[in-house]
């Protein structure tokens, strides 16, 4: 693997241009984006989800909490196509997605991170994000091989040197090349957005823990999801890092994404979410604004415990 | 296609298939055990079997055993040959582990590399008997088929009443031998302390070592046990077929590996089920068509089984072998 183009110093500045990575959304804020409808999911005898109902509205930050083993991750898995619900349906933008293949669901506009980080460990941070960008690219395998689909480039895309420039003017540039460049640019932008651009070329395996968590978020954002699901993004963060993360989650929402977040850290959940859904033993036991949920006696009994223990 | 031939002699063909399959099953054990613990296809296992057959020949030669000895002598020679074959095969398996796999394990090499050293070892062993030993000792080593004296004379011991199916002593020995060894091994792995260690390493090597299981010893044990089973298979094979050859292991190895996958690689009982099923399928296929189509049929059956049960008939994992 040859090294990638060296990124210019200006690219490392931690200010990023939101316009370049904001996504286009196709609906009004507040309308229902995803609907979990009477979903039940069993593994053999284990009922991981039992008749769960809730919906996510465009533009909000929704928290999903509950004791360990309550079925939160399972719920994510059902939404992203890893598992198929035993009963019930899940609708995304009014389209049934239960049972659809994970990659198709991603193409529809849902992305996620994993509770136990699952990056591509031998790829650089940048490449990890580029895999995400690729999800939106159109060049086929044959297109990559023969590069016959050529596009007339805009002035900015033309190469600088003379011969190549006129060549590109006459024959155009293959769509693959353009997409590749655009993907690289966007990926860099995203790394900057989550604040880890300084180590873009390091393989993911060697990144510090906090960077890995944020890289996962960048990779998910790269697929331009309308809904992004974060599974315990703050796990293992210290209070200061958690504070940063809260800001990041808000900024993600500002880019136009809708956010669903699983988190055990109540401070973060209460601080950042608009609404919270609480699960216990696969069942929804409460739903409401953070204040409502925090006061809900059922939630306190099942999850929060005596106020002192909410760590 | 001749289904009549199959239906008419169904009992007979089933017996033939089980005999053939018993050998597959015993050899398959070696693949399955090593795979269960190390997630590795031991390509040299076919040669572990091959070495066993030569050891039987050697033992007979040293003892001067021939057909028509007294019953006592026959039993003694056979038992000695069994012991020798088990030892030699187990030793070969262990040597392969030491030379070709352990250094790679220490270097943390990816599985594909083990495959190549396995193939290399297999070639070295084959050539040892086909070329190296011949260069030093001359025949019977070399590339020709070698006759092994049939110490046990084939006789019909009884006829299954009702279907009138004669059963010979050698067949009986093979089938019973294979099943007894399988049960013994299965019991060992499920019940004994060391066996528990094997299953623990198969499930989670790190935690197993925290429980005081010596992983290296378990790996050695697995190779020794698999090798010994191949030794048993070698003796039974020579009793039934009376021959060996430098590359006798190649085809049997591939069949046994197929059997292991068919039953669910990593699963001991799967090896038995897969072996017997494969044997029976092959014999049936050679009745319906002829032997030139058996392998095609066997592989198609394998693909069909895997399409419906992607991890083989009985599923995976040595750890879950009890299921």
């Amino acid at each position: 693997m040859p090294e990638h183009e060296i990124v210019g110093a200006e690219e490392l500045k931690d200010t990023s241009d939101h316009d370049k990575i904001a996504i286009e959304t196709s609906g009004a804020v507040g309308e229902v984006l995803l609907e979990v409808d009477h979903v039940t999911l069993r593994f053999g005898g284990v009922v991981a989800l039992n008749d769960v109902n809730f919906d996510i509205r465009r533009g909000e930050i929704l928290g999903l909490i509950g004791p360990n083993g309550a079925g939160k991750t399972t719920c994510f898995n059902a939404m992203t196509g890893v598992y198929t619900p035993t009963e019930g349906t899940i609708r995304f933008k009014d389209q049934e997605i239960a049972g659809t293949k994970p990659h198709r669901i991603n193409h529809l506009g849902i992305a996620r991170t994993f509770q136990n980080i699952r990056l591509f460990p031998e790829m650089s941070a940048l490449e990890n994000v580029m895999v995400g960008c690729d999800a939106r690219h159109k060049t086929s395998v044959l297109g990559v091989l023969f590069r016959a689909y050529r596009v007339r480039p805009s002035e900015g895309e033309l190469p600088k040197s003379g011969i190549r420039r006129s060549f590109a003017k006459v024959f155009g540039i293959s769509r693959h090349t353009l997409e590749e460049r655009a993907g690289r640019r966007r990926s860099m932008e995203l790394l900057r957005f989550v604040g880890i651009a300084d180590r873009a070329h390091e393989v993911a395996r060697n990144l510090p823990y906090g960077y890995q968590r944020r890289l996962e978020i960048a990779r998910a954002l790269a697929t331009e999801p309308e809904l992004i699901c974060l599974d315990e993004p703050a796990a293992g963060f210290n209070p200061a890092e958690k504070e940063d993360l809260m800001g990041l989650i808000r900024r993600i929402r500002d880019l136009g994404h809708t956010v669903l977040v699983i988190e055990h850290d109540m401070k973060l959940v209460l601080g950042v979410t608009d609404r919270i859904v609480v699960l216990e033993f696969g069942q929804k036991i409460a739903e409401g604004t953070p204040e409502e949920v925090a006061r809900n006696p059922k939630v306190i009994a099942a999850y929060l415990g005596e106020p002192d223990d909410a760590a | 296609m001749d289904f009549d031939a199959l239906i008419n002699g169904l009992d007979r063909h089933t017996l033939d298939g089980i005999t053939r399959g018993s050998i597959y099953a015993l050899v398959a054990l070696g693949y399955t055990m090593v795979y269960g613990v190390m997630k590795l296809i031991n390509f040299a296992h076919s040669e572990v079997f091959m070495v066993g057959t030569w050891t039987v020949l050697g033992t007979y030669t040293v003892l001067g055993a021939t057909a028509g000895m007294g019953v006592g002598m026959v039993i003694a020679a056979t038992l000695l040959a069994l012991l020798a074959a088990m030892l030699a095969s187990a030793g070969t398996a262990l040597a392969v582990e030491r030379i070709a796999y352990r250094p790679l394990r220490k270097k943390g090499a990816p599985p594909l590399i083990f495959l190549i050293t396995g193939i290399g070892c297999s070639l070295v062993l084959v050539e040892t008997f086909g070329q190296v030993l011949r260069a030093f000792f001359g025949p019977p080593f070399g590339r020709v088929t070698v006759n092994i004296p049939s110490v046990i004379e084939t006789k019909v011991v009884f006829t299954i009443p009702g279907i009138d199916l004669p059963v010979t002593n050698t067949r009986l020995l093979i089938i019973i031998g294979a099943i007894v060894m399988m049960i013994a091994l299965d019991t060992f792995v499920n019940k004994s302390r060391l066996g528990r260690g094997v299953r623990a390493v198969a499930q989670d090597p790190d935690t197993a070592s925290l429980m005081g299981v010596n992983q290296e010893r378990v790996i050695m044990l697995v190779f020794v046990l698999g090798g010994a089973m191949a030794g048993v298979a070698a003796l039974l094979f020579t009793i039934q077929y009376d021959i060996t050859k430098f590359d006798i292991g190649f085809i049997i190895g591939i069949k046994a590996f197929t059997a292991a996958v068919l039953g669910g690689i990593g699963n001991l009982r799967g090896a038995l089920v897969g072996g017997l099923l494969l044997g029976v399928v092959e014999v049936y296929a050679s009745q319906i068509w002829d032997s030139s189509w058996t392998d095609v049929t066997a592989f198609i059956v394998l693909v069909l089984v895997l399409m419906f049960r992607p991890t083989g008939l009985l599923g995976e994992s040595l750890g879950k072998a009890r299921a």
Partner: protein
Amino acid sequence: MSQILDSYRGLQLGNRWDRAPKWFRTVALLLVVAFAFYLPFLNILPFAYIRTDLNPTGSDWASVLFLIVVYMIAAVGLNVVIGFAGLLDLGYVGFYALGAYSVALFGSPSSPVVQALQSRFDLSEEWAVPFVMCIPIAIAMSLTAGVILGAPTLRLRGDYLAIVTLGFGEIIRITARNLDNVTGGAAGITQVPVPPGPEIDGRSFFNTIDAERWYWLALVILILIVWLASRLEHSRVGRAWLAIREDEDAAAVMGVAGFKFKLWAFAIGASVGGLAGLLFGSKQQYVEPNAFMLNLSFLFVAMVVIGGSGNIVGVLVGAFLLTYLPERFRELQEWRPFAFGLALVLVMVLRPQGLVPSRRRAAEIEDRRHEAEEAAADA
């Protein structure tokens, strides 16, 4: 041995190559290619010692070169499957056979298929599908076979895939052997067509004697294939394969259609294998089932792994050595397979990352080696 390896490592060829200026790399590459074309005539001592026909029972140098390049093509194709997509294919010889059989079945006037066509459409006895048409047929046949094999089996986990593909290779060979009235059975098919070309000295351009012409043809095709394959490596397709190899589920959730990309890998590998087989069959002008034994599949895999799975240059080196050395040392005669086996074990134990590994793999293995060493607490 390890000292040699160390000093080799010390040269840091790969890094130097990357740091060299672009013009230097272009010129060097052109020189290498030019030298490759010149190889059959290489006759200047001491370099001529690499020739395989120096001793009386050696084999024809240009023929050996041809075979090397054909195996290189096959290895580059298999590398797409094993090295890029991480799928273990032990039946690659099946595609190779299909390629060879396609050109024989459709291009040879003595093949049962052509004869059937002749009598069906009242064609002359000389008629057969022209060679140039056989190329797309061969590629299409092996590609279709790749898809047919891949579609139901690619969902299987790694080692299950290995045995299924192995079975596939055998099925192809046995079927070719058994279907006498389609494939000519065990006797095979003669009069396999050769590429068109001007007649020289009363012989067609591509004949059985002037092997260097075949070699050049194969070399051109090899260069083309290598060029295309390296395009794949550094693109979204290569990234997708890498992602699948590392974590298939995570890749799927990131929108990588795992199955589709694996199937593509299979199809591409298959058609390249078919192309190699076509060259082989056409040069031999004779195709028979025993030329496609299982061992050849293992040999292909060994080429990929020994050279350095995932790295095209490594794979080329692997294919070269494994084909060339046994031919160069024919005088070892019967000892060759033994030496070969020994070499496989030794090379892999000493250099598990392959002779010319991809840098990514090398780093991976290096790290794991450290870990493994440290994990051994008694070290």
